[in-house]
């Protein structure tokens, strides 16, 4: 990072500078949405590890569909759910490159579940950043594979009925049974302490990828204030009260820790 050396009037900007792995483009995320934080943590990790020059990101369909404008590393846009397959192609041509995907819950755990599970099973040396906010954001708030039992969405207007629509999928728990997975960790960004933890997990995932240990996934339990119909602060309260009990934070697989 290119930080200002003098702490004068420019001090605040220097203390919280934009990592040069992000462009100056204004994001299309709603105010108060967790994406801004998570996107930045990923950018910081890439910058701190000094791998921006050989990093390629993949942004599929969802709220992060325009992330190719936000990251200053090489970027591929991918079809809905197909990011792990696209990342596989990118990585297999240049195995020394660092390849990450940035996917939402509908993308990763619904339409792209096959690509996710098989990339993990192959031990594909990619890093998946999985934003789980229990709803389809981009299309305006439909039920996601991670929507909670009873959760009201545009397409579950009477609340998610598990008898009718089945149960939410706990992705980290599921993937942790696969031998190809080097790291599966669930984090949150609802307060400074969890943001710091999330940053550590994301950085670790990239480090494991660079070390060639296998497939790495960091699931970030996140908010969607707009489609949840809550203020940003109330959304974090809802996350702590409803999501974290169903999606406990923690490390589900760490091949180095074994």
């Amino acid at each position, binding site marked *: 990072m290119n930080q200002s050396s003098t702490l004068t009037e420019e001090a605040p900007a220097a203390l919280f500078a934009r990592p040069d792995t992000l462009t100056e483009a204004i994001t299309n995320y709603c105010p108060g949405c967790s994406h801004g934080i998570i996107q930045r943590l990923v950018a910081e990790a890439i910058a701190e590890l000094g791998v*921006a*020059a*050989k*990093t*390629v990101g*993949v942004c599929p369909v969802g709220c992060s*569909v*325009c992330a*190719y*404008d936000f*990251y*200053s*590393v*090489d*970027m*591929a*846009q*991918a*079809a809905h759910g*197909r990011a792990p*397959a*696209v*990342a*596989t*192609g*990118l*990585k*297999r*041509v*240049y195995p020394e*490159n*660092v390849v990450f995907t940035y996917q939402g819950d509908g993308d990763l755990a619904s339409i792209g579940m*096959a*690509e996710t*599970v*098989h990339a993990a099973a192959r031990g594909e040396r990619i890093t998946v950043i999985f934003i789980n906010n229990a709803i389809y954001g981009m299309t305006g708030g439909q039920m996601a594979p991670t929507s909670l039992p009873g959760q009201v969405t545009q397409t579950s207007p009477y609340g998610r009925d598990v008898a009718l629509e089945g149960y939410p999928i706990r992705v980290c728990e599921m993937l942790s049974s696969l031998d190809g997975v080097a790291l599966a960790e669930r984090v949150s960004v609802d307060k400074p302490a969890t943001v710091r933890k999330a940053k550590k997990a994301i950085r670790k995932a990239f480090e494991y990828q660079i070390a060639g240990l296998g497939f790495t996934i960091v699931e970030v339990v996140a908010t969607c204030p707009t489609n949840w119909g809550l203020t940003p602060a109330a959304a974090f309260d809802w996350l702590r009260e409803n999501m974290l009990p169903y999606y406990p934070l923690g490390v589900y697989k760490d091949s180095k820790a074994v």
Partner: protein
Amino acid sequence: MSEKVLMKGNEALAEAAIRAGCRHFFGYPITPQTELAAYMAKRLPREGGLYLQAESEVAAINMVYGAAAAGARVMTSSSSPGISLKQEGISYMIGADLPALIVNVQRGGPGLGGIQPSQADYWQATRAVGHGDGHIIVLAPATVQEMADMAALAFELGDAYRTPVMILADGLLGQMMEPVVLPEPLNSADLPAKPWALTGHGNAREHNVVNSLFLVAQELEDSILERWQRYRAIQEKEQRAEKYLTEDAEYVIVAYGAVARIARSACNLARAEGIRAGLIRPISLWPYPVAALQETVANAKAYLVSEFSMGQMVDDVRLALAGSRPVNFFSHTGGIVQTPDELLVALRRLAAGESIDLVPYQSRLA
């Protein structure tokens, strides 16, 4: 000069693709393209390349998308139902201007259809290979030699015009053995540079983006117009067809792929009876070789289209001739292969002044 070897069409295409610089293959098993994938699985690791069996055709084509985005000469192969699954990815590759080779060793359809030779994906390949306002180049081999020769051509055209290219073969060509002279291996240093590829910016350039999304309508229109300028250049420069005995032909068969071989025999039989028959064999199905067809109009009294389908190319022939000559049709479908004798009878009837538009359920030619 390489020696002549006896190979299956699927294997000859695979070997030729490797010699054309292809080091990455992503596929999913399906009959009747199996030999192609199996050959790649055996050979590519020994060439420092990668054969990866994907979890589905959907994943395979998206791996191709990723590898093509990284700048590799990359291919996949499948057969009709599998190509349907790849259509999403092909559309994205068109939209992102990514070159790659897609091989369709056609089988019968719709649905699971059958595993016998078919040309029933002509419409899909030339008209609707994916959603949106786009095309891909489609090449149709008729011999094992051509299966081999088209691999390098497909990669060259794809790189030159930044488009996916399909080799549209069929189970007959794929599994038939013929003598073939394989092309000399290409020097990897001779492959074209791809400054747009996602290789990591290396702190040496602005970041590259591979993308098919344009939320501003004007930007999308501009990107499509730019692509269609390339399509226009392709239509002007890349029409390919073979003509056989067409100089004085009064009755011209139009057939591609394996059917063209049968039609050639029928022409010879007809000539022996004094019927001046000829053959136009489209080699590029998109762009369609309109010029080659129009060049034969002066002497032609009637045209006869024959396919392994209910007549999917026949509209292109009618469009090319623009009503100037009658266009007749005879085919089999579902894996039944027409015989030279059947086409001879059709030619006789044309020579007798009849017009025919026959498919087997209407009337067996006898």
